[in-house]
């Protein structure tokens, strides 16, 4: 098995698995879940092999159809693409978690379709992350978005459908902006391959190149829900089924950011424009996102709504780190993409398990649940500590790196914004943990509920354990990503 065949398999296995799910699963939800689990186990194996390979030999490519780029489509696997590992891991855990959850929460006839869409969503993400061709990127983005809209609406509740529609309109407009930008880049360079575009863009007219950059950034930031383009996110993420929320919040919004990294790779390499204006805008918007997201989260009663707003503020951290364009900031931001995915998935799956057992989702109603569901709430608490960024958990190192990045870039004031945001986040997670453990229950029967079933508890505990492990071994991903960041920033010449 060569590396390039494995790289193709990473996309083809879940794709074929997804289109075969209705054939294999039929109307039997458990069988569809078993099939999806099998598919994700195989895909995760492939992803693990690829990450090991990239760590050993550095970036590599697969040429589809045997056409060398720029004539054919190239799949490119570099250190940033290592996020496929987290995509596969979360995908696998979300599928397992869904076994009991979907049977309980979704209309029975839709369960088979649910797994199909889940696999398609993961396929879209994997393709988006590894492709080296801008139009192929658009195609995978559409697979990812379409399945995402449907997954938000799948519960069939009125609010879910309205949230999905809002998400769809914003998402479709942003996809169009990206397509427009692809057209402009094609007009300027005559190429669709990212590396080739980057090489050929240098002599191009400045105004269209700048317009393409603006359109790409705007489109991708809608997907990433950066303030002020975040309006679709809270409803969609809070109302979707919990495993879907975990995927949307943990991964799907991140694809916008990974796309932004690809855009940086194109434009930093081309040296056609000075990106410092864009970076300044991104840093400011990131800072505003941190504070706004945290501020709104404080006033939420609904536990999943709170988590959704917290995603907005964490996206702010990452965008700020990327915008700082300093070594530390970028490394911290990239690693935070991984870590936040772990943490947010822990929190959303934990919240899902609690809602599954108790039927309540407001913090007031959930008072005292810590006594009846000790393992789940313990996992949520670990997630909460991580997201605030206390050592020795996963959230600490990357936020510390982003703060260092702010100092390194000569803007210590943003480091202050970061700490300020962390304080807000601390307040609302303390509020959550407090109501779980220390307040008198409003509903006495909440003390009687059972701990979550194993198919839910095991994924949650694995994720919580990883939050701690990543905190202790935090240096490994940081040093893993360092060469890629150095390469990216090295091309800036400063």
């Amino acid at each position, binding site marked *: 098995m060569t590396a390039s065949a494995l790289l193709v398999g990473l996309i083809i296995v879940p794709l074929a698995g997804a289109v075969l799910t209705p054939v294999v699963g039929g109307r039997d939800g458990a069988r569809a879940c078993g099939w999806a689990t099998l598919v994700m186990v195989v895909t995760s194996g492939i992803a693990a092999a690829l990450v090991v390979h990239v760590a050993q030999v550095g970036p590599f490519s697969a040429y589809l159809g045997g056409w060398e780029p720029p004539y054919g489509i190239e799949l490119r696997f570099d250190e940033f693409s290592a996020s496929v590992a987290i995509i596969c891991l979360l995908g696998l855990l979300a599928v397992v978690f869904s076994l009991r959850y979907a049977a309980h929460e979704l209309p029975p006839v839709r369960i088979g379709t649910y797994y199909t869409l889940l696999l398609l969503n993961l396929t879209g993400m994997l393709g988006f992350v590894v492709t080296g061709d801008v139009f192929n990127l658009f195609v995978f983005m559409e697979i990812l978005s379409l399945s995402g809209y449907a997954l938000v609406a799948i519960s069939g509740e009125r609010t879910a459908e309205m949230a999905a529609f809002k998400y769809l309109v914003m998402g479709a407009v942003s996809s169009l902006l990206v397509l427009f930008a692809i*057209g402009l880049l094609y007009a300027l360079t005559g190429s*669709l391959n990212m590396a080739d575009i980057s090489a050929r863009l240098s002599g191009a007219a400045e105004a269209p190149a700048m317009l393409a950059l603006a359109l790409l950034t705007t489109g991708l930031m809608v997907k990433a829900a950066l303030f002020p383009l975040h309006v679709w996110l809270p409803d969609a993420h809070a109302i979707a089924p919990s495993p879907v929320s975990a995927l949307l919040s943990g991964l799907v919004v991140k694809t916008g950011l990974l796309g932004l990294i690809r855009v940086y790779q194109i434009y930093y390499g081309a040296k056609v424009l000075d990106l410092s204006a864009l970076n300044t805008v991104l840093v400011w918007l990131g800072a505003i996102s941190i504070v706004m997201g945290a501020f709104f989260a404080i006033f939420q009663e609904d536990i999943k709504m709170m988590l959704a707003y917290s995603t907005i503020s964490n996206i702010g951290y990452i965008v700020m780190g990327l915008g700082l364009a300093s070594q530390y900031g970028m490394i911290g931001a990239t690693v935070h993409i991984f870590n936040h995915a772990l943490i947010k998935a822990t929190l959303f799956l934990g919240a899902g398990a609690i809602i599954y057992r108790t039927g309540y989702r407001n913090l007031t109603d959930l008072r005292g649940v810590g006594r009846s569901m000790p393992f789940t709430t313990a996992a949520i608490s670990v997630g909460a500590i991580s997201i605030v960024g206390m050592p020795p958990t996963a959230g600490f190192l990357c936020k510390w790196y982003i703060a260092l990045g702010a100092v390194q870039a000569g803007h210590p004031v943003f480091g202050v914004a970061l700490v300020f945001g962390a304080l807000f986040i601390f307040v609302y997670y303390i509020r959550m943990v407090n109501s779980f453990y220390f307040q008198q229950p409003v509903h006495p029967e909440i003390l009687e509920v059972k701990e979550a079933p194993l198919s839910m508890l095991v994924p949650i505990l694995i994720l919580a354990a990883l939050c701690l492990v990543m905190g202790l071994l935090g240096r490994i991903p940081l040093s893993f990503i360092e060469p890629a960041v150095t390469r990216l920033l090295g091309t800036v010449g400063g």
Partner: protein
Amino acid sequence: MIAMLWQNIDYVGSVVLFCIGLYCVITKNNLIKKFIGLNIMETSVFAFIIALGVVDGGEAPIMGAGASAPFTNPIPQALILTGIVVAVSTTALALSLIIRIYEHCGTIEADELREME
């Protein structure tokens, strides 16, 4: 600049259509109307990309007896074939959602729906 715009009249037409579509998406209250607006935006982008591939006096890029150069650029055409399919997929999903929203709420006017929330 005006002379260049005159030469690039196809691109200008696309920009105008894009703005008309965006206007429809932003100001129209009816969800179906919003979506027709989005379709106009989509086709405007398609028209822009197809226009990139046009060559003066170019013929369809189909080789064979009787075909003579110059041929139009096939790449934008291939891209837009995919784009059209993506557009119809999005439309199908959006209209399904609209049908469901109407069944639940009895209206598809955005402001009335907002009041219901």
